[in-house]
């Protein structure tokens, strides 16, 4: 090995930058993953919910006697059982409370009313069917624009007299918060002076992250020890432990939370749900382990929706297309309880990234959060907090402005993109963007697809359409997005008062193999593979010799978990910093063994060598052994380190996407002819995994833009919360993706990485929407709302008089 060149030795490590095959796959391809529902324990019981058929009703009578008589049913929990324990409500991540089981009123369809505990899941389901509830139906509120009307039904009677919410004054019983940011006066002045303005209501429909594995848990309470073990589909296991302790009053050291393999999360598995609380209580009551597994309808209709943002968007500009100001007023529908998963100080997430990639001199944003008779949630579905809403808002807005100005949308963007020399760039709404080279990215994307030729083809096709020679329209969509991920600096980001740092602990064994434990939790992102690559490069030990472990709160250092593309920016940084502590100690050991001063050594891939005398060296493997038997006098033996990383700033990945669609105006069918995605996520750790993440994120974006919607009818029924109706793209509809990249490292991150998992959702959704809208633009249409399913597209064509 010592006659290998540095390059050969580096390649052997499978460190950062290589397309290392995934460690996880070995078990997954053989059906040997270990998911929550795979867990079997002696005496395991099953819990199932009785849910409300009404969207808004007063519970007059609740009778569980028939359910309790079902063979195999052991007990039925209702709010009356939980109330004496103070557990009928639980705190949400947004400073509100949420009913664990409905007490006097139900506030959304499928709300949890009773929890039936039985010997098997069939008996539990039988029991749940037989819980009798007598309801008095109440007026329904599903339109967020009517929530604050004087005559609107009061939904939350439990807090109706509370005029102060978690985020300031409430101006109506159905009002949650008002959040404002930016310079209102200066923005209003910019609009008064503007040569051109546009205004459009841009609505982002309610959707659901819908991982293939639903939310589930197993709670096992040991009465003798007074200890609770909770296995679950938790994206943030440590936070769940803290919440479980605060709610149950079981001391935190007596709670063991374990997230085993997770079948996708996309934000759905961040929050705490009634099922977890009920399973814990049921285990305490019965003295046996209790499993709760959501079915798909429960998943889509109760746990963690996303979006439902309605954004009145205004842009002021000069007549030659320089943007002068942005004003956005948003109504945010949070459902029946404010269970939005955002850092405490950010009730509208990082929505103030809404100035996007453009150099707006001034901007002002107001968000009003309101209650409705819909399921609670408001999680980020594969995006950082409210960032995809912001990207959709500004990217549609820029296209609408381009249309009004008669400018090409790419030209308008090039004119207003933040220039390379402006970084670090402070936006009008207060963010400091770390790094970027936007013009290079957009020009490269335009060259890659032959943008000018596409526009010429579109023009010819439009003319042919007007002559009646074709019934097909061509649309070209552009989106240039800036993400904001890696929450976050503890000075402005916390969850329930816990600062949003993250952690890594690395321990080198005497033989030079490694275990690393982290505060994050992979749900398919491949952390076992990529974190090992960071350590391999930092410490010169082969990635194959490094085990990465997450998800066990007893062994892993405390961390805030995996969502908002924060694993690489925060735990990835912690990993590099912990490795560097180890390396510094190893250097002292090497100096001792080689009998030179520390400063006389230099690092070479996997070893410290004496400067000017490369034949004299100690490999990291040698130093691992020495750390346990030949350390310098006065030094502690062993070779391990832990780092809790509090990032100095967020990271700002960006990208340029272009999509070409062909729309059949008679059927409303939209075919995606081409989709090109250029992403810049800073330093790239594993290009294979990055590409996979982008494919997946674009496919989710395609689902959202082209069909997904969690819809409610006027009587409060959630329509179509199953795979029969909720659009899940199959391999047939899913377009082929072309991926590309530029690399602009983050200047403040130890390895320059920015995070990538959610970029394709943030950029993808507006890109599809812009493409469909672009197809109709030449006929005078300004904005067609998502989702762009065949029916809506046909309706849009019909409204334009295209069906004769």
């Amino acid at each position, binding site marked *: 090995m010592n006659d290998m060149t540095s390059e050969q030795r580096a390649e052997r490590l499978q460190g950062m930058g290589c397309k290392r*095959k995934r460690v996880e796959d070995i078990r997954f391809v053989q059906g040997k993953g270990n998911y929550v529902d795979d867990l079997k324990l002696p005496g395991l019981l099953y819990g199932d919910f009785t849910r409300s058929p009404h969207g808004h009703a007063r519970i007059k009578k609740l009778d569980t006697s028939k359910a309790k008589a079902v063979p195999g049913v052991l007990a039925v929990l209702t709010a009356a059982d939980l109330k004496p324990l103070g557990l009928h409500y639980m705190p949400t991540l947004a400073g509100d409370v949420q009913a664990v089981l409905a007490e006097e009123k139900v506030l959304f369809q499928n709300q949890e009313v009773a929890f039936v505990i039985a010997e098997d899941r069939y008996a539990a389901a039988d029991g749940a069917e037989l819980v009798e509830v007598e309801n008095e139906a109440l007026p329904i509120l599903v339109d967020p624009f009517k929530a604050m009307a004087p005559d609107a039904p009061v939904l939350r009677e439990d807090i109706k007299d509370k005029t102060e919410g978690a985020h300031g004054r409430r101006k109506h019983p159905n009002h949650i918060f008002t959040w404002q940011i930016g310079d209102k006066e200066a923005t209003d002045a910019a609009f008064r002076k503007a040569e051109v303005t546009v205004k459009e209501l841009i609505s982002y429909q309610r959707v659901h992250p819908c991982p*293939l594995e639903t939310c589930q848990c197993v709670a096992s309470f040991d009465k003798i020890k007074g200890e609770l073990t909770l296995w679950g589909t938790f994206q943030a296991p440590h936070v769940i432990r803290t919440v479980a302790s605060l709610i149950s009053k079981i001391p935190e050291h007596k709670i063991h939370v374990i997230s085993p*393999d997770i079948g996708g999360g996309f934000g759905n598995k961040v929050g705490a749900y009634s099922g977890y609380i009920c399973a814990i209580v049921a285990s305490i009551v019965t003295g046996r382990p209790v499993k709760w597994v959501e079915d*798909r309808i429960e998943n889509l209709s109760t746990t963690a929706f996303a979006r439902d943002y309605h954004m009145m968007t205004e842009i002021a500009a000069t007549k030659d297309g320089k943007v002068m100001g942005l004003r956005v007023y948003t109504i945010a529908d949070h459902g029946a309880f404010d269970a939005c998963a955002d850092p405490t100080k950010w009730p509208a997430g990082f929505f103030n990234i809404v100035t996007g990639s453009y150099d707006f001199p001034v901007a002002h944003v107001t968000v009003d959060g309101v209650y409705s008779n819909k399921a609670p949630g408001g999680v980020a579905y594969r995006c950082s907090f409210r960032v995809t809403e912001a990207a959709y808002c500004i990217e549609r807005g820029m296209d609408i402005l381009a249309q009004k100005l008669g400018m090409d949308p790419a030209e308008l963007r090039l004119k207003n993109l933040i220039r390379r020399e402006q970084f670090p760039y402070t936006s009008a709404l207060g963010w400091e963007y770390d790094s970027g080279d936007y013009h290079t990215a957009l020009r490269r994307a335009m060259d890659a697809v032959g943008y000018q030729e596409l526009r010429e083809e579109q023009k010819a096709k439009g003319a042919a359409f007007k002559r009646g020679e074709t019934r097909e329209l061509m649309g070209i969509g552009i989106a240039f997005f800036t993400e904001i991920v890696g929450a976050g600096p503890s000075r402005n980001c916390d969850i329930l008062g816990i600062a949003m740092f993250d952690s890594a602990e690395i321990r080198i064994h005497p033989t030079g193999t490694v275990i690393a434990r982290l505060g994050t939790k992979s749900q*398919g992102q491949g952390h076992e593979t990529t974190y090992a690559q960071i350590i391999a490069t930092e410490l010169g030990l082969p990635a194959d010799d490094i085990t990465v472990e997450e998800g066990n709160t007893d062994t892993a250092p405390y961390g805030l978990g995996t969502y908002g593309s924060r694993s690489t920016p925060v735990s990835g940084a912690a990993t590099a910093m912990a490795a560097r502590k180890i390396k510094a100690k190893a250097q002292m050991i090497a100096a001792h063994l080689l009998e030179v001063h520390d400063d006389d050594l230099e690092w070479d891939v996997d070893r410290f060598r004496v400067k000017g005398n490369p034949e004299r060296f100690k490999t990291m493997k040698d130093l691992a052994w020495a750390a346990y038997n030949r350390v310098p006098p006065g030094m502690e033996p062993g070779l391990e380190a832990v780092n809790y990383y509090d990032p100095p700033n967020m990271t700002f990945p960006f990208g340029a996407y272009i999509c070409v669609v062909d729309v059949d105006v008679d059927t409303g069918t939209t075919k995606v002819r081409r989709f090109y995605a250029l992403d810049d996520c800073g330093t790239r750790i594993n290009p294979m995994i990055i590409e996979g993440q982008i494919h997946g994120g674009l*496919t989710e974006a395609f689902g959202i833009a082209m069909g997904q919607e969690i819809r409610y009818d006027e009587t409060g029924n959630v329509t179509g919360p199953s*795979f029969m109706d909720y659009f899940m793209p199959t*391999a047939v509809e899913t377009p*082929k*993706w072309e991926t590309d990249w530029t690399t602009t490292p983050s200047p403040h991150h130890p390895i320059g990485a920015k995070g990538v998992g959610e970029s394709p959702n943030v950029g993808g959704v507006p890109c599809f929407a812009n493409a469909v809208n672009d197809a109709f633009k030449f006929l005078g249409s300004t904005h067609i709302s998502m989702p762009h399913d065949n029916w809506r597209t046909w309706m849009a064509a019909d409204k334009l008089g295209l069906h004769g």
Partner: protein
Amino acid sequence: MSKVQVSMKVNGKTVDALVEPRMLLIHFLREQLNLTGPHIGCDTSHCGACTIDLDGKSVKSCTMFAAQADGADILTIEGVARADGTLHPLQEGFREMHGLQCGFCTPGMIVRAYRLLQENKNPSEEEIRFGISGNLCRCTGYQNIVKAIQYAAAKINGVPFQEAAE
């Protein structure tokens, strides 16, 4: 509830058991036989996470009773690799081509692809996409799953695998 006797072959082994008449095949496999490779993703036969091979056909085991499988010959993901532990070309292909992320759809996807390659030894990309359209994946966007199946087809057919130009 009175139970019924079933007998079937699962991954080459004969299994005799008593089951409730209403027990779904997926629950029988996962909970009575401890074959937790096939998963439950939707309960309505849309997602295909529970796909198994039954008498030479791809079957969604969440929509069939265990009692209906009496006498059947079943293959689950656990029976796909060779007895000596060598991975099947599909299992190898999924890893080589990065055809999986969270791994939840993977067992059903591989078992479906296993049958697809018996029905059509050399499927085109379009035929693969159509052939796996009863199996949903939320992570990969399918592009690398298609490549993984092409990789396996090439290996089974003894021809070199050539990745199509993007």
